[in-house]
C-alpha cells in the first residue's frame, strides 16, 4: 500500500472508533480511500447551527504532500465557499499555489493535516467567515453590507439541509 492509502486507512479506522464532535466521516465508496463523505454539523452559536451539511473530501494520490479538495454537496451560503460548493481556505492550498493573492502569511497546507484537522478548520471557517479573500463575492458583499439578509439566506440553507435528512 502506498503512503497515502496507509494514512487514509488509519484515519478511517480512528474516526470510526473514536468519532470527533462536529462532523461525521466515512468513504463515499468503500473501495476508494481517496473519496470521503463528510457531514458537518453547523457549529453551535453560529448562523449555521442546526444544519447538517454534506461535503466530499477528495484526496490526491500524493497526499499528504498535497492537500485534498473539499466541496459542499449541500447548498451552502458563505463567503469562503464557491457557488459550486468548493471550500476555499488557506490550509487547503499548497504554499506555492496562490490564486487569490492570499495573505502570504496565512497558514498553508502541510503534511501534518488530517481529515480531523481539516474539518476543524472548516468548522472554524463557518464560525468566522473571512471576507478578505472571498470565494463567493455575493455572499461576501452581503456578509459585509447586509448582515440581516445574509442571516436570512443562511437560515434558508440550514432549513434546506434539515429537510434533506
Amino acid at each position: 500500500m502506498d503512503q497515502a492509502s496507509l494514512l487514509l486507512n488509519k484515519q478511517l479506522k480512528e474516526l470510526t472508533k473514536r468519532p470527533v464532535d462536529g462532523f461525521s466521516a466515512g468513504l463515499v465508496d468503500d473501495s476508494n480511500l481517496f473519496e470521503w463523505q463528510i457531514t458537518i454539523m453547523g457549529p453551535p452559536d453560529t448562523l449555521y447551527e442546526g444544519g447538517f451539511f454534506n461535503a466530499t473530501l477528495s484526496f490526491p494520490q500524493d497526499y499528504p504532500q498535497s492537500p485534498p479538495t473539499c466541496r459542499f454537496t449541500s447548498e451552502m451560503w458563505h463567503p469562503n465557499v464557491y457557488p459550486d460548493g468548493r471550500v476555499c481556505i488557506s490550509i487547503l492550498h499548497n504554499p506555492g499555489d496562490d490564486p487569490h493573492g492570499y495573505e502570504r502569511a496565512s497558514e498553508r497546507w502541510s503534511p501534518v493535516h488530517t481529515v480531523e484537522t481539516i474539518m476543524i478548520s472548516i468548522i472554524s471557517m463557518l464560525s468566522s467567515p473571512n471576507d478578505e479573500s472571498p470565494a463567493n463575492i455575493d455572499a461576501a458583499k452581503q456578509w459585509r453590507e447586509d448582515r440581516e439578509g445574509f442571516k436570512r439566506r443562511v437560515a434558508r440553507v440550514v432549513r434546506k439541509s434539515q429537510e434533506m435528512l
Partner: protein
Amino acid sequence: MRSGYAGNESPARAESSVGAISHQNTAETFTDGAESRPLQSVGDHSVGVSLADNTLRTSVNSVSAAVGDSGDEPTAEIVTSTPTHVPNEAEDVSRPTDDQIIAQENSIRAAEAEKRPFVGIVEPLSALEEEYRQGSAVFRDKIRSLEMQYGSMRRTRGDGNCFFRSFMFAFMEQLVQNNDIPERNRVVTCIRQWKAKLVAVGFQEMVFEDAMEIVIDQLNSLGTAESLSVAQLEHNFCEPMLSPMIIMLLRMLTSAEIQRRSDFFAPFIMGMCDDEVSVEQFCRRYVEPMGEESDHVHIVALTNALLVPIRVVYLDRSTGAAMAGVGYDSAAINHHDFVPDSLGESPTPVNPRVHVLYRPGHYDILYPLTVTAANSTQIASC
C-alpha cells in the same frame, strides 16, 4: 525579513519566476537573485527578487481591485465564471489572468526544479568553479578559497527542502561510510524519544509514525548483512515516496523543537517576521509546509533536535573582511557552526558532522578534503 517572503525562493525557483518576467538571466543573477534569509552576512536583495516580488504584489492588488469593483454590480457572471478568475475592468483581453500567470510560474518552477535530482552525484568543486566562469570575481575568488577546505559536493534540488535534504543525506551517508554504530545508536534513540515530544506539541501520531519508522529502519540496517549502502541511500533519497517522507519528519522535529523551546526561539522569530506571529503560527506557516525555505531558526532547531553539529559555509557576495573584522581578504569565506546547546559546553571543539554550502536561497552538500584538513585550517569565521 519576511517581507520578501514571496520572493524567497531557491535559486531554481527564483530564476524561473524572474525568467518568466524578464526572459533573461545570467548565471550571476541566477544565484544572487534569490533573496538571502539566514544570516545578516548575506544581505543582497537583488533586482531579480524585487521584480518577482512586485509582480506577485501586483497580482494581489489587481484581484482585490477587481473584487472591489464588482461590488457595485455583482453579476452572476463573475461568480459562475471560472471560480478563480476575477475579471478586471482595466484588463486587456489578451493579457493572461493572474491565475494563469501563477500557474505558468509554478510550472516553470517545477520544471526547473525537476531538472535536478533530489540529491545529485558527487562532483568535484571544480564543477562549481566552472559554473561561475563567466560570473562575479568575488564568487570565483571565494570558490578558490573553498577548494582549500573542500574537495567535492553534491547538489540538491532547489525545491525549498534543500536544507533538510542536504542535511539528512550527508548525515546518513557519513554513518554508512564509517559504519558508525555508536552514533547510529545514539540518533535512533534520539529519534524514538521524539515520538512523545511530537505528540506533546499536538502532532497526531499517525502523521509521523510511518516516516519515523522508515528513517529508523534505514539506520538500523547498518551493521547487518543487509546494511544500507550509499547507492541505496541515493536511491531512497530520490524515491518519490520515501524522499518527501524523510523531509516531512525533519520538518515536524524542527517545528516541535521550536515549539518546545518557544521562549528561546520567540525573539528570533519576532525579528524575522514583519507581522506579529506566534511561535506556533511561525511553525505552521514556515516550518511544517513542504517547500518552505530554511532559515537560521530552522537550522538551530534541527541541530538541537538531533544533536548533530552542522557547518554552513556561505558563498555569497559579502566580502570576508567586513564580516570577519580581520585583515582585508575579499576571498575569505564565512562559515557558521551550528552546535547543539548541550555540546556547546564541551571543553574540546565540536567538529561539525555535516557541512553544507549556502548560496543565497539554496543549500548543497560539501565534503571536506579530509577531516583533519578541515579542522586544522582556520577560515575567517563570522
